[in-house]
Protein backbone atom coordinates (compact mmCIF):
# COMPACT_ATOMS: atom_id res chain seq x y z
CA UNK A 1 0.00 0.00 0.00
CA UNK A 2 1.32 3.43 -0.90
CA UNK A 3 1.82 5.77 2.01
CA UNK A 4 -0.60 8.70 2.11
CA UNK A 5 2.19 11.14 2.85
CA UNK A 6 5.85 10.37 2.68
CA UNK A 7 8.40 13.03 3.49
CA UNK A 8 12.14 12.53 3.35
CA UNK A 9 14.73 14.99 4.68
CA UNK A 10 12.35 17.94 4.67
CA UNK A 11 13.85 21.22 5.86
CA UNK A 12 12.36 24.70 5.89
CA UNK A 13 14.27 27.90 6.48
CA UNK A 14 12.86 31.41 6.96
CA UNK A 15 15.51 33.89 5.92
CA UNK A 16 18.47 32.14 7.47
CA UNK A 17 17.04 30.43 10.50
CA UNK A 18 16.12 26.80 9.99
CA UNK A 19 12.63 26.14 11.37
CA UNK A 20 12.19 22.53 10.26
CA UNK A 21 15.32 20.40 10.06
CA UNK A 22 15.66 17.15 8.16
CA UNK A 23 12.26 15.68 8.99
CA UNK A 24 11.36 12.30 7.51
CA UNK A 25 7.99 10.74 8.14
CA UNK A 26 5.47 8.32 6.69
CA UNK A 27 1.72 8.61 7.19
CA UNK A 28 -0.47 5.64 6.30
CA UNK A 29 -4.00 5.98 4.88
CA UNK A 30 -6.64 6.35 7.59
CA UNK A 31 -4.17 7.24 10.33
CA UNK A 32 -4.55 10.11 12.76
CA UNK A 33 -1.12 11.50 13.49
CA UNK A 34 -0.61 14.32 15.98
CA UNK A 35 2.35 16.67 15.74
CA UNK A 36 3.29 17.73 19.24
CA UNK A 37 6.07 19.83 20.68
CA UNK A 38 6.65 23.09 22.53
CA UNK A 39 5.87 26.51 21.02
CA UNK A 40 8.20 27.26 18.14
CA UNK A 41 9.05 23.59 17.57
CA UNK A 42 8.01 23.90 13.92
CA UNK A 43 4.63 22.11 13.97
CA UNK A 44 2.78 24.72 11.94
CA UNK A 45 5.66 25.20 9.52
CA UNK A 46 5.90 21.46 8.91
CA UNK A 47 2.15 21.28 8.22
CA UNK A 48 2.36 24.19 5.78
CA UNK A 49 5.32 22.60 4.01
CA UNK A 50 3.51 19.26 3.70
CA UNK A 51 0.47 21.12 2.35
CA UNK A 52 2.66 22.71 -0.33
CA UNK A 53 2.03 26.25 0.92
CA UNK A 54 5.68 27.08 1.57
CA UNK A 55 8.83 25.97 -0.17
CA UNK A 56 10.94 23.28 1.47
CA UNK A 57 14.00 21.24 0.62
CA UNK A 58 13.82 17.46 0.60
CA UNK A 59 11.04 15.42 -0.99
CA UNK A 60 7.34 15.07 -0.21
CA UNK A 61 5.19 12.42 -1.85
CA UNK A 62 1.44 12.66 -1.71
CA UNK A 63 -0.23 9.32 -2.43
CA UNK A 64 2.84 8.33 -4.40
CA UNK A 65 3.12 11.53 -6.42
CA UNK A 66 5.82 14.15 -5.80
CA UNK A 67 4.35 17.32 -4.29
CA UNK A 68 5.89 19.60 -6.91
CA UNK A 69 4.25 17.64 -9.75
CA UNK A 70 0.79 18.57 -8.46
CA UNK A 71 -0.87 21.82 -9.50
CA UNK A 72 -2.40 24.06 -6.83
CA UNK A 73 -5.82 22.77 -7.80
CA UNK A 74 -4.83 19.10 -7.76
CA UNK A 75 -3.23 19.61 -4.37
CA UNK A 76 -6.37 21.28 -3.06
CA UNK A 77 -8.37 18.20 -4.05
CA UNK A 78 -6.01 16.06 -1.94
CA UNK A 79 -5.38 18.20 1.14
CA UNK A 80 -7.91 20.23 3.12
CA UNK A 81 -6.26 22.58 5.61
CA UNK A 82 -7.85 24.04 8.72
CA UNK A 83 -5.48 26.81 9.84
CA UNK A 84 -5.01 27.82 13.44
CA UNK A 85 -6.87 31.10 13.05
CA UNK A 86 -8.90 30.89 9.85
CA UNK A 87 -10.19 34.09 8.26
CA UNK A 88 -13.93 34.08 8.48
CA UNK A 89 -15.35 37.08 6.60
CA UNK A 90 -17.94 38.29 9.12
CA UNK A 91 -20.78 39.02 6.69
CA UNK A 92 -20.62 35.72 4.82
CA UNK A 93 -23.35 33.19 5.61
CA UNK A 94 -22.36 29.72 6.81
CA UNK A 95 -23.54 28.09 3.58
CA UNK A 96 -21.68 30.59 1.41
CA UNK A 97 -18.56 29.99 3.47
CA UNK A 98 -18.84 26.19 3.21
CA UNK A 99 -19.46 26.50 -0.53
CA UNK A 100 -16.03 28.16 -0.88
CA UNK A 101 -14.59 24.74 0.00
CA UNK A 102 -15.73 23.58 -3.45
CA UNK A 103 -13.29 25.96 -5.18
CA UNK A 104 -10.88 23.21 -6.34
CA UNK A 105 -13.71 21.68 -8.38
CA UNK A 106 -15.06 24.83 -10.00
CA UNK A 107 -13.51 26.10 -13.22
CA UNK A 108 -11.80 29.47 -12.76
CA UNK A 109 -14.58 31.64 -14.19
CA UNK A 110 -17.51 29.30 -13.53
CA UNK A 111 -20.12 29.15 -10.77
CA UNK A 112 -20.99 26.26 -8.49
CA UNK A 113 -22.87 23.32 -9.98
CA UNK A 114 -25.71 21.41 -8.34
CA UNK A 115 -23.14 18.80 -7.28
CA UNK A 116 -21.18 21.50 -5.43
CA UNK A 117 -24.30 22.66 -3.63
CA UNK A 118 -25.09 19.07 -2.69
CA UNK A 119 -21.57 18.53 -1.33
CA UNK A 120 -21.81 21.70 0.76
CA UNK A 121 -25.27 20.73 2.01
CA UNK A 122 -23.98 17.31 3.03
CA UNK A 123 -21.07 18.88 4.91
CA UNK A 124 -23.49 21.17 6.76
CA UNK A 125 -25.69 18.24 7.72
CA UNK A 126 -22.85 16.10 8.95
CA UNK A 127 -21.53 18.81 11.22
CA UNK A 128 -24.98 19.66 12.53
CA UNK A 129 -25.00 23.10 10.96
CA UNK A 130 -28.25 22.91 8.99
CA UNK A 131 -30.03 25.31 11.31
CA UNK A 132 -27.13 27.76 10.96
CA UNK A 133 -26.97 27.64 7.15
CA UNK A 134 -28.26 31.16 6.61
CA UNK A 135 -26.61 32.71 9.68
CA UNK A 136 -23.74 35.13 9.15
CA UNK A 137 -20.37 34.03 10.45
CA UNK A 138 -20.01 36.86 12.97
CA UNK A 139 -23.14 35.67 14.78
CA UNK A 140 -21.67 32.23 15.56
CA UNK A 141 -20.04 31.15 18.82
CA UNK A 142 -16.46 29.85 18.85
CA UNK A 143 -17.51 26.20 18.71
CA UNK A 144 -20.05 26.78 15.93
CA UNK A 145 -17.48 28.73 13.95
CA UNK A 146 -14.93 25.93 14.27
CA UNK A 147 -17.56 23.48 13.00
CA UNK A 148 -18.22 25.77 10.03
CA UNK A 149 -14.49 25.78 9.22
CA UNK A 150 -14.46 21.97 9.45
CA UNK A 151 -17.52 21.80 7.19
CA UNK A 152 -15.70 23.91 4.61
CA UNK A 153 -12.73 21.53 4.77
CA UNK A 154 -15.06 18.52 4.52
CA UNK A 155 -16.79 19.98 1.44
CA UNK A 156 -13.36 20.00 -0.17
CA UNK A 157 -13.64 16.16 -0.43
CA UNK A 158 -9.93 15.72 0.16
CA UNK A 159 -8.63 12.42 1.56
CA UNK A 160 -6.15 14.30 3.76
CA UNK A 161 -7.23 16.62 6.53
CA UNK A 162 -4.57 18.91 8.03
CA UNK A 163 -5.56 20.58 11.28
CA UNK A 164 -3.44 23.27 12.92
CA UNK A 165 -4.35 23.52 16.62
CA UNK A 166 -8.01 22.88 15.77
CA UNK A 167 -9.32 23.37 19.29
CA UNK A 168 -7.01 25.91 20.89
CA UNK A 169 -9.76 28.56 21.09
CA UNK A 170 -12.45 26.27 22.52
CA UNK A 171 -13.56 25.26 26.01
CA UNK A 172 -13.12 21.73 27.32
CA UNK A 173 -16.49 20.39 26.13
CA UNK A 174 -16.25 22.03 22.71
CA UNK A 175 -12.71 20.64 22.28
CA UNK A 176 -13.96 17.09 22.83
CA UNK A 177 -16.98 17.60 20.57
CA UNK A 178 -14.94 18.94 17.66
CA UNK A 179 -12.30 16.21 17.96
CA UNK A 180 -14.99 13.50 18.19
CA UNK A 181 -16.56 14.91 15.05
CA UNK A 182 -13.22 14.82 13.25
CA UNK A 183 -12.78 11.22 14.37
CA UNK A 184 -16.27 10.27 13.13
CA UNK A 185 -15.59 11.86 9.75
CA UNK A 186 -12.28 10.03 9.61
CA UNK A 187 -13.91 6.64 10.27
CA UNK A 188 -16.85 7.20 7.93
CA UNK A 189 -14.88 8.62 5.01
CA UNK A 190 -11.54 6.94 5.59
CA UNK A 191 -9.81 10.31 5.95
CA UNK A 192 -6.21 10.63 7.01
CA UNK A 193 -5.71 13.27 9.68
CA UNK A 194 -2.52 15.15 10.55
CA UNK A 195 -3.05 17.58 13.39
CA UNK A 196 -0.74 19.91 15.23
CA UNK A 197 -1.99 19.63 18.80
CA UNK A 198 -1.33 21.55 21.95
CA UNK A 199 -3.10 19.44 24.56
CA UNK A 200 -1.06 16.31 25.14
CA UNK A 201 -3.89 14.36 26.83
CA UNK A 202 -6.26 15.01 23.92
CA UNK A 203 -3.50 14.25 21.41
CA UNK A 204 -2.80 10.94 23.15
CA UNK A 205 -6.48 9.99 23.24
CA UNK A 206 -7.38 10.83 19.66
CA UNK A 207 -4.23 10.17 17.66
CA UNK A 208 -2.94 6.74 16.63
CA UNK A 209 0.57 8.07 16.63
CA UNK A 210 2.44 11.07 17.99
CA UNK A 211 5.39 12.84 16.42
CA UNK A 212 7.29 14.96 18.92
CA UNK A 213 9.12 17.91 17.41
CA UNK A 214 11.71 20.08 19.11
CA UNK A 215 13.53 22.93 17.43
CA UNK A 216 12.43 21.66 14.05
CA UNK A 217 13.60 18.10 14.52
CA UNK A 218 11.71 14.88 15.19
CA UNK A 219 12.87 13.75 18.63
CA UNK A 220 10.41 10.91 19.22
CA UNK A 221 7.57 9.21 17.43
CA UNK A 222 5.31 6.24 18.03
CA UNK A 223 2.24 5.23 20.00
CA UNK A 224 1.14 7.79 22.60
CA UNK A 225 2.04 5.62 25.58
CA UNK A 226 5.56 5.17 24.18
CA UNK A 227 6.18 8.81 23.31
CA UNK A 228 4.70 10.50 26.36
CA UNK A 229 6.99 10.18 29.36
CA UNK A 230 7.67 12.42 32.32
CA UNK A 231 11.32 12.79 31.37
CA UNK A 232 10.56 13.77 27.75
CA UNK A 233 7.92 16.31 28.74
CA UNK A 234 10.38 17.76 31.23
CA UNK A 235 13.22 17.83 28.69
CA UNK A 236 11.35 19.33 25.73
CA UNK A 237 8.53 21.36 27.27
CA UNK A 238 10.37 22.33 30.46
CA UNK A 239 7.25 21.23 32.30
CA UNK A 240 6.74 19.27 35.45
CA UNK A 241 3.98 16.72 34.83
CA UNK A 242 2.59 13.49 36.10
CA UNK A 243 1.47 10.90 33.63
CA UNK A 244 -1.39 8.54 34.37
CA UNK A 245 -2.12 5.44 32.36
CA UNK A 246 -5.67 4.20 32.62
CA UNK A 247 -7.01 1.42 30.42
CA UNK A 248 -4.52 2.24 27.69
CA UNK A 249 -5.38 5.95 27.84
CA UNK A 250 -2.71 8.48 28.65
CA UNK A 251 -3.35 11.53 30.83
CA UNK A 252 -0.82 14.30 31.19
CA UNK A 253 -1.34 16.30 34.36
CA UNK A 254 0.65 19.47 34.99
CA UNK A 255 2.07 19.75 38.49
CA UNK A 256 3.27 22.77 40.35
CA UNK A 257 6.92 22.30 41.21
CA UNK A 258 7.53 21.19 44.78
CA UNK A 259 9.34 23.87 46.64
CA UNK A 260 12.16 23.25 49.10
Amino acid at each position, binding site marked *: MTAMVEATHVSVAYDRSVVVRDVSLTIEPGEWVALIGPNGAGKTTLL*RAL*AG*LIACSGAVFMDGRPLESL*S*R*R*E*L*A*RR*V*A*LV*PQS*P*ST*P*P*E*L*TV*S*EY*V*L*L*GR*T*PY*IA*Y*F*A*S*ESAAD*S*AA*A*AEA*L*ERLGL*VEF*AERRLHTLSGGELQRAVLARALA*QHAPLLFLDEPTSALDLGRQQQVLEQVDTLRREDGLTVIAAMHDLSLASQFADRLILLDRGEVVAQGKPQDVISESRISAFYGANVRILHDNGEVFVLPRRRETG
Partner: protein
Amino acid sequence: MSSEQVAAVAVPVHVRARGISLRWGIGAAAFLLLAMLVGLGVGPVRIGPGSIVESALSHLPFLHIHSPLSVVDSAVVWQLRAPRVVLGALVGAMLAVAGSAYQGAFRNPLADPYLLGVAAGAGLGATLVISYLSAQKGSGLLLPLAAFVGATASVVLAYALGRSVGGVRSTGTLILAGVTVAAFMTAAQSFVQQQRAQSLLEVYSWLLGGLGSSTWHDVALVAPYIVVSSIVLVLHRRVLDVLSLGDEEAASLGVNVRRTRLVIVAAATIGTAAAVAVSGLIGFVGIIVPHTVRLLVSTSYRAVVPLSFVVGAGFLVLTDVVARTILSPSELPIGVVTAFLGAPFFALVLRTTRYTSP
Protein backbone atom coordinates in the same frame (compact mmCIF):
# COMPACT_ATOMS: atom_id res chain seq x y z
CA MET B 1 -43.99 4.78 12.15
CA SER B 2 -45.13 7.44 9.74
CA SER B 3 -43.32 10.16 11.64
CA GLU B 4 -40.11 8.17 11.30
CA GLN B 5 -40.58 8.00 7.57
CA VAL B 6 -41.07 11.74 7.44
CA ALA B 7 -37.87 12.24 9.37
CA ALA B 8 -36.02 9.89 7.02
CA VAL B 9 -36.85 12.02 4.00
CA ALA B 10 -36.15 15.31 5.75
CA VAL B 11 -35.95 18.24 3.40
CA PRO B 12 -32.28 18.69 2.54
CA VAL B 13 -30.80 22.06 3.30
CA HIS B 14 -30.68 24.21 0.21
CA VAL B 15 -27.24 25.64 -0.27
CA ARG B 16 -26.61 28.34 -2.78
CA ALA B 17 -24.53 31.45 -3.03
CA ARG B 18 -26.47 34.65 -3.06
CA GLY B 19 -25.78 36.32 -6.34
CA ILE B 20 -27.89 39.23 -7.38
CA SER B 21 -31.59 38.78 -6.74
CA LEU B 22 -33.95 39.70 -9.57
CA ARG B 23 -35.23 42.59 -7.46
CA TRP B 24 -31.80 44.22 -7.12
CA GLY B 25 -30.88 43.50 -10.72
CA ILE B 26 -34.00 45.26 -11.99
CA GLY B 27 -33.60 48.04 -9.43
CA ALA B 28 -30.02 48.78 -10.53
CA ALA B 29 -30.94 48.71 -14.22
CA ALA B 30 -33.88 51.04 -13.60
CA PHE B 31 -31.59 53.41 -11.68
CA LEU B 32 -29.17 53.56 -14.61
CA LEU B 33 -31.96 54.10 -17.15
CA LEU B 34 -33.48 56.86 -15.05
CA ALA B 35 -30.09 58.52 -14.58
CA MET B 36 -29.48 58.48 -18.33
CA LEU B 37 -32.91 59.99 -19.08
CA VAL B 38 -32.20 62.75 -16.55
CA GLY B 39 -28.76 63.26 -18.08
CA LEU B 40 -30.22 63.57 -21.58
CA GLY B 41 -33.15 65.75 -20.56
CA VAL B 42 -31.71 68.27 -18.09
CA GLY B 43 -29.84 71.34 -19.29
CA PRO B 44 -30.47 74.83 -20.66
CA VAL B 45 -33.06 73.23 -22.96
CA ARG B 46 -35.25 70.88 -20.95
CA ILE B 47 -36.51 67.88 -22.86
CA GLY B 48 -39.05 65.48 -21.38
CA PRO B 49 -38.20 61.79 -20.94
CA GLY B 50 -41.13 60.70 -23.14
CA SER B 51 -39.83 62.68 -26.12
CA ILE B 52 -36.31 61.27 -25.60
CA VAL B 53 -37.58 57.69 -25.60
CA GLU B 54 -39.68 58.32 -28.72
CA SER B 55 -36.76 60.01 -30.44
CA ALA B 56 -34.52 57.06 -29.56
CA LEU B 57 -37.06 54.57 -30.89
CA SER B 58 -37.42 56.56 -34.12
CA HIS B 59 -33.83 55.63 -34.95
CA LEU B 60 -34.78 51.96 -34.98
CA PRO B 61 -35.89 50.51 -38.31
CA PHE B 62 -39.39 49.08 -38.94
CA LEU B 63 -40.99 50.81 -35.93
CA HIS B 64 -42.21 53.86 -37.92
CA ILE B 65 -42.16 56.17 -34.94
CA HIS B 66 -41.60 59.84 -35.72
CA SER B 67 -39.30 61.78 -33.47
CA PRO B 68 -41.21 64.52 -31.64
CA LEU B 69 -38.02 66.56 -31.31
CA SER B 70 -37.06 69.46 -33.54
CA VAL B 71 -33.82 69.19 -35.47
CA VAL B 72 -32.08 71.47 -32.98
CA ASP B 73 -33.37 69.57 -29.93
CA SER B 74 -32.43 66.29 -31.54
CA ALA B 75 -28.88 67.56 -32.07
CA VAL B 76 -28.72 68.77 -28.47
CA VAL B 77 -29.77 65.37 -27.18
CA TRP B 78 -27.84 63.09 -29.49
CA GLN B 79 -24.73 65.11 -30.36
CA LEU B 80 -24.14 67.18 -27.23
CA ARG B 81 -25.64 65.35 -24.30
CA ALA B 82 -25.63 61.70 -25.33
CA PRO B 83 -21.83 61.34 -25.74
CA ARG B 84 -21.38 63.04 -22.39
CA VAL B 85 -23.93 60.76 -20.72
CA VAL B 86 -22.49 57.59 -22.28
CA LEU B 87 -18.92 58.60 -21.43
CA GLY B 88 -19.98 59.44 -17.88
CA ALA B 89 -21.66 56.06 -17.58
CA LEU B 90 -18.59 54.21 -18.89
CA VAL B 91 -16.16 56.12 -16.65
CA GLY B 92 -18.40 55.74 -13.58
CA ALA B 93 -18.89 52.03 -14.22
CA MET B 94 -15.15 51.50 -14.63
CA LEU B 95 -14.11 53.47 -11.54
CA ALA B 96 -16.68 51.67 -9.40
CA VAL B 97 -15.85 48.18 -10.68
CA ALA B 98 -12.12 48.84 -10.35
CA GLY B 99 -12.67 50.07 -6.78
CA SER B 100 -14.49 46.88 -5.81
CA ALA B 101 -11.78 44.77 -7.47
CA TYR B 102 -8.92 46.60 -5.70
CA GLN B 103 -10.73 46.21 -2.39
CA GLY B 104 -11.02 42.47 -2.96
CA ALA B 105 -7.54 41.92 -4.34
CA PHE B 106 -5.89 43.82 -1.47
CA ARG B 107 -8.44 42.86 1.19
CA ASN B 108 -8.62 46.50 2.11
CA PRO B 109 -12.02 48.19 2.19
CA LEU B 110 -10.46 51.60 1.63
CA ALA B 111 -8.53 50.66 -1.49
CA ASP B 112 -9.53 52.40 -4.69
CA PRO B 113 -8.13 52.82 -8.20
CA TYR B 114 -6.00 55.75 -7.12
CA LEU B 115 -4.29 53.69 -4.42
CA LEU B 116 -1.32 52.61 -6.50
CA GLY B 117 -0.59 56.06 -7.87
CA VAL B 118 -2.95 55.93 -10.85
CA ALA B 119 -4.04 59.53 -10.28
CA ALA B 120 -0.56 60.91 -9.74
CA GLY B 121 0.86 59.12 -12.78
CA ALA B 122 -1.98 60.23 -15.03
CA GLY B 123 -1.59 63.76 -13.66
CA LEU B 124 2.10 63.83 -14.52
CA GLY B 125 1.49 62.52 -18.05
CA ALA B 126 -1.29 65.01 -18.70
CA THR B 127 0.68 67.93 -17.23
CA LEU B 128 3.65 67.14 -19.46
CA VAL B 129 1.48 67.22 -22.58
CA ILE B 130 -0.47 70.33 -21.59
CA SER B 131 2.68 72.23 -20.59
CA TYR B 132 4.94 71.39 -23.49
CA LEU B 133 2.72 70.38 -26.39
CA SER B 134 -0.48 72.31 -25.81
CA ALA B 135 0.01 74.61 -28.78
CA GLN B 136 0.94 71.86 -31.16
CA LYS B 137 -1.50 70.01 -33.33
CA GLY B 138 -2.49 66.51 -32.32
CA SER B 139 -2.20 67.08 -28.57
CA GLY B 140 -5.89 66.26 -28.36
CA LEU B 141 -5.05 62.60 -28.77
CA LEU B 142 -1.72 62.80 -26.99
CA LEU B 143 -3.27 63.96 -23.72
CA PRO B 144 -5.28 60.79 -23.04
CA LEU B 145 -2.38 58.67 -24.25
CA ALA B 146 0.08 60.37 -21.89
CA ALA B 147 -2.36 60.08 -18.97
CA PHE B 148 -2.84 56.40 -19.77
CA VAL B 149 0.90 55.75 -19.92
CA GLY B 150 1.53 57.70 -16.70
CA ALA B 151 -1.19 55.82 -14.81
CA THR B 152 -0.03 52.41 -15.96
CA ALA B 153 3.63 53.22 -15.30
CA SER B 154 2.82 54.23 -11.72
CA VAL B 155 1.17 50.92 -10.98
CA VAL B 156 3.96 48.92 -12.59
CA LEU B 157 6.51 50.89 -10.52
CA ALA B 158 4.49 50.43 -7.33
CA TYR B 159 4.13 46.72 -7.98
CA ALA B 160 7.85 46.29 -8.71
CA LEU B 161 8.82 48.29 -5.63
CA GLY B 162 6.37 46.38 -3.44
CA ARG B 163 7.72 43.05 -4.63
CA SER B 164 11.38 44.04 -4.37
CA VAL B 165 11.00 44.76 -0.66
CA GLY B 166 9.43 41.38 -0.08
CA GLY B 167 5.84 42.49 -0.29
CA VAL B 168 4.67 39.56 -2.33
CA ARG B 169 2.62 38.23 0.55
CA SER B 170 1.76 41.47 2.28
CA THR B 171 -0.71 43.85 0.68
CA GLY B 172 0.29 46.54 3.17
CA THR B 173 3.73 46.78 1.57
CA LEU B 174 2.18 47.23 -1.85
CA ILE B 175 -0.04 50.05 -0.62
CA LEU B 176 2.95 51.85 0.92
CA ALA B 177 4.86 51.39 -2.33
CA GLY B 178 1.91 53.01 -4.14
CA VAL B 179 2.01 55.97 -1.77
CA THR B 180 5.76 56.32 -2.36
CA VAL B 181 5.41 56.28 -6.14
CA ALA B 182 2.49 58.71 -5.97
CA ALA B 183 4.51 61.15 -3.86
CA PHE B 184 7.33 61.10 -6.39
CA MET B 185 5.00 61.51 -9.38
CA THR B 186 3.21 64.40 -7.68
CA ALA B 187 6.51 66.13 -7.00
CA ALA B 188 7.54 65.77 -10.64
CA GLN B 189 4.13 67.03 -11.76
CA SER B 190 4.37 70.10 -9.49
CA PHE B 191 7.84 70.84 -10.82
CA VAL B 192 6.67 70.79 -14.44
CA GLN B 193 3.58 72.78 -13.57
CA GLN B 194 5.53 75.58 -11.83
CA GLN B 195 8.04 75.71 -14.62
CA ARG B 196 5.32 76.35 -17.19
CA ALA B 197 3.05 78.61 -15.17
CA GLN B 198 1.23 79.86 -18.28
CA SER B 199 -0.57 76.52 -18.61
CA LEU B 200 -1.52 76.36 -14.93
CA LEU B 201 -5.22 76.92 -15.53
CA GLU B 202 -5.49 74.23 -18.16
CA VAL B 203 -3.61 71.75 -15.96
CA TYR B 204 -5.87 72.48 -13.00
CA SER B 205 -9.08 72.13 -14.95
CA TRP B 206 -7.88 68.74 -16.22
CA LEU B 207 -6.78 67.60 -12.76
CA LEU B 208 -10.19 68.43 -11.30
CA GLY B 209 -11.88 66.19 -13.81
CA GLY B 210 -14.67 66.82 -16.23
CA LEU B 211 -16.77 65.38 -18.99
CA GLY B 212 -17.35 68.83 -20.51
CA SER B 213 -16.13 68.40 -24.05
CA SER B 214 -17.05 64.76 -24.56
CA THR B 215 -17.61 63.56 -28.10
CA TRP B 216 -18.55 60.23 -29.63
CA HIS B 217 -14.88 60.04 -30.54
CA ASP B 218 -13.90 59.94 -26.83
CA VAL B 219 -16.48 57.24 -26.26
CA ALA B 220 -15.05 55.10 -29.05
CA LEU B 221 -11.53 55.72 -27.73
CA VAL B 222 -12.09 54.30 -24.26
CA ALA B 223 -15.05 51.94 -24.62
CA PRO B 224 -12.97 48.91 -25.70
CA TYR B 225 -10.61 49.17 -22.69
CA ILE B 226 -13.43 49.72 -20.24
CA VAL B 227 -15.63 46.96 -21.62
CA VAL B 228 -12.84 44.35 -21.71
CA SER B 229 -11.47 45.28 -18.25
CA SER B 230 -14.94 45.20 -16.74
CA ILE B 231 -15.75 41.81 -18.24
CA VAL B 232 -12.49 40.39 -16.85
CA LEU B 233 -13.27 41.77 -13.39
CA VAL B 234 -16.89 40.60 -13.40
CA LEU B 235 -15.69 37.10 -14.33
CA HIS B 236 -13.45 37.17 -11.23
CA ARG B 237 -16.35 37.82 -8.83
CA ARG B 238 -16.34 34.32 -7.27
CA VAL B 239 -12.54 34.19 -7.10
CA LEU B 240 -12.60 37.53 -5.26
CA ASP B 241 -14.77 35.88 -2.59
CA VAL B 242 -12.14 33.13 -2.25
CA LEU B 243 -9.37 35.76 -1.95
CA SER B 244 -11.29 37.30 0.97
CA LEU B 245 -10.13 34.30 3.03
CA GLY B 246 -6.54 35.50 2.80
CA ASP B 247 -3.63 34.37 0.69
CA GLU B 248 -2.79 31.13 2.46
CA GLU B 249 -6.34 29.80 2.66
CA ALA B 250 -7.09 30.82 -0.92
CA ALA B 251 -3.95 28.93 -1.96
CA SER B 252 -5.03 25.88 0.03
CA LEU B 253 -8.29 25.98 -1.93
CA GLY B 254 -6.36 25.73 -5.19
CA VAL B 255 -6.12 29.39 -6.24
CA ASN B 256 -2.84 30.70 -7.63
CA VAL B 257 -3.00 33.82 -5.51
CA ARG B 258 -0.12 35.80 -7.00
CA ARG B 259 -1.17 35.31 -10.59
CA THR B 260 -4.82 35.98 -9.82
CA ARG B 261 -4.04 39.20 -7.97
CA LEU B 262 -1.79 40.35 -10.83
CA VAL B 263 -4.55 39.76 -13.42
CA ILE B 264 -7.16 41.57 -11.32
CA VAL B 265 -4.89 44.54 -10.60
CA ALA B 266 -3.81 44.75 -14.26
CA ALA B 267 -7.40 44.73 -15.55
CA ALA B 268 -8.55 47.29 -12.98
CA THR B 269 -5.56 49.53 -13.69
CA ILE B 270 -5.79 49.47 -17.48
CA GLY B 271 -9.51 50.22 -17.34
CA THR B 272 -9.01 53.01 -14.80
CA ALA B 273 -6.14 54.51 -16.79
CA ALA B 274 -8.38 54.63 -19.88
CA ALA B 275 -11.17 56.27 -17.88
CA VAL B 276 -8.81 58.82 -16.32
CA ALA B 277 -7.33 59.59 -19.72
CA VAL B 278 -10.60 61.01 -21.04
CA SER B 279 -12.21 62.32 -17.86
CA GLY B 280 -9.38 63.65 -15.73
CA LEU B 281 -9.23 62.81 -12.06
CA ILE B 282 -12.56 61.86 -10.54
CA GLY B 283 -12.04 60.51 -7.04
CA PHE B 284 -14.06 58.45 -4.56
CA VAL B 285 -16.40 56.73 -7.05
CA GLY B 286 -14.56 53.48 -6.31
CA ILE B 287 -15.28 53.93 -2.61
CA ILE B 288 -18.84 55.30 -2.65
CA VAL B 289 -20.44 52.87 -5.09
CA PRO B 290 -19.10 49.44 -3.95
CA HIS B 291 -19.74 50.27 -0.29
CA THR B 292 -23.29 51.40 -1.03
CA VAL B 293 -23.87 48.05 -2.76
CA ARG B 294 -22.39 46.25 0.26
CA LEU B 295 -24.66 48.12 2.65
CA LEU B 296 -27.80 47.59 0.60
CA VAL B 297 -27.39 44.20 -1.06
CA SER B 298 -24.54 41.90 0.00
CA THR B 299 -20.86 41.89 0.84
CA SER B 300 -20.23 38.97 -1.52
CA TYR B 301 -18.24 40.02 -4.59
CA ARG B 302 -20.74 38.09 -6.71
CA ALA B 303 -23.11 40.96 -6.05
CA VAL B 304 -20.65 43.79 -5.45
CA VAL B 305 -18.70 43.60 -8.73
CA PRO B 306 -21.55 43.46 -11.29
CA LEU B 307 -23.84 45.81 -9.36
CA SER B 308 -21.00 48.33 -8.92
CA PHE B 309 -20.72 48.45 -12.71
CA VAL B 310 -24.38 49.36 -13.21
CA VAL B 311 -24.77 51.61 -10.17
CA GLY B 312 -21.43 53.35 -10.80
CA ALA B 313 -22.57 54.22 -14.33
CA GLY B 314 -25.82 55.77 -13.09
CA PHE B 315 -24.08 57.50 -10.19
CA LEU B 316 -21.57 59.37 -12.34
CA VAL B 317 -24.22 60.40 -14.88
CA LEU B 318 -26.28 61.96 -12.08
CA THR B 319 -23.18 63.53 -10.50
CA ASP B 320 -22.36 65.10 -13.85
CA VAL B 321 -25.90 66.55 -14.03
CA VAL B 322 -25.29 68.19 -10.65
CA ALA B 323 -21.86 69.43 -11.76
CA ARG B 324 -23.19 71.15 -14.86
CA THR B 325 -26.40 72.59 -13.40
CA ILE B 326 -25.61 73.71 -9.86
CA LEU B 327 -23.62 76.82 -10.93
CA SER B 328 -25.30 77.14 -14.33
CA PRO B 329 -24.34 78.62 -16.75
CA SER B 330 -20.82 77.83 -15.56
CA GLU B 331 -19.76 74.27 -14.70
CA LEU B 332 -18.36 72.83 -11.49
CA PRO B 333 -15.62 70.22 -12.10
CA ILE B 334 -17.20 66.81 -11.52
CA GLY B 335 -14.24 65.74 -9.34
CA VAL B 336 -15.25 68.45 -6.87
CA VAL B 337 -18.77 67.03 -6.62
CA THR B 338 -17.58 63.44 -6.10
CA ALA B 339 -15.09 64.64 -3.48
CA PHE B 340 -17.82 66.55 -1.65
CA LEU B 341 -19.89 63.37 -1.49
CA GLY B 342 -16.99 60.96 -1.18
CA ALA B 343 -14.86 62.41 1.60
CA PRO B 344 -17.61 62.18 4.27
CA PHE B 345 -18.50 58.75 2.93
CA PHE B 346 -14.86 57.66 3.19
CA ALA B 347 -14.82 58.81 6.83
CA LEU B 348 -18.00 56.82 7.47
CA VAL B 349 -16.50 53.66 5.97
CA LEU B 350 -13.32 54.21 7.97
CA ARG B 351 -15.34 54.41 11.19
CA THR B 352 -17.65 51.46 10.61
CA THR B 353 -15.42 49.01 8.79
CA ARG B 354 -14.02 45.98 10.56
CA TYR B 355 -10.55 46.68 9.35
CA THR B 356 -7.93 44.02 9.96
CA SER B 357 -4.35 44.70 9.10
CA PRO B 358 -3.43 42.74 5.95
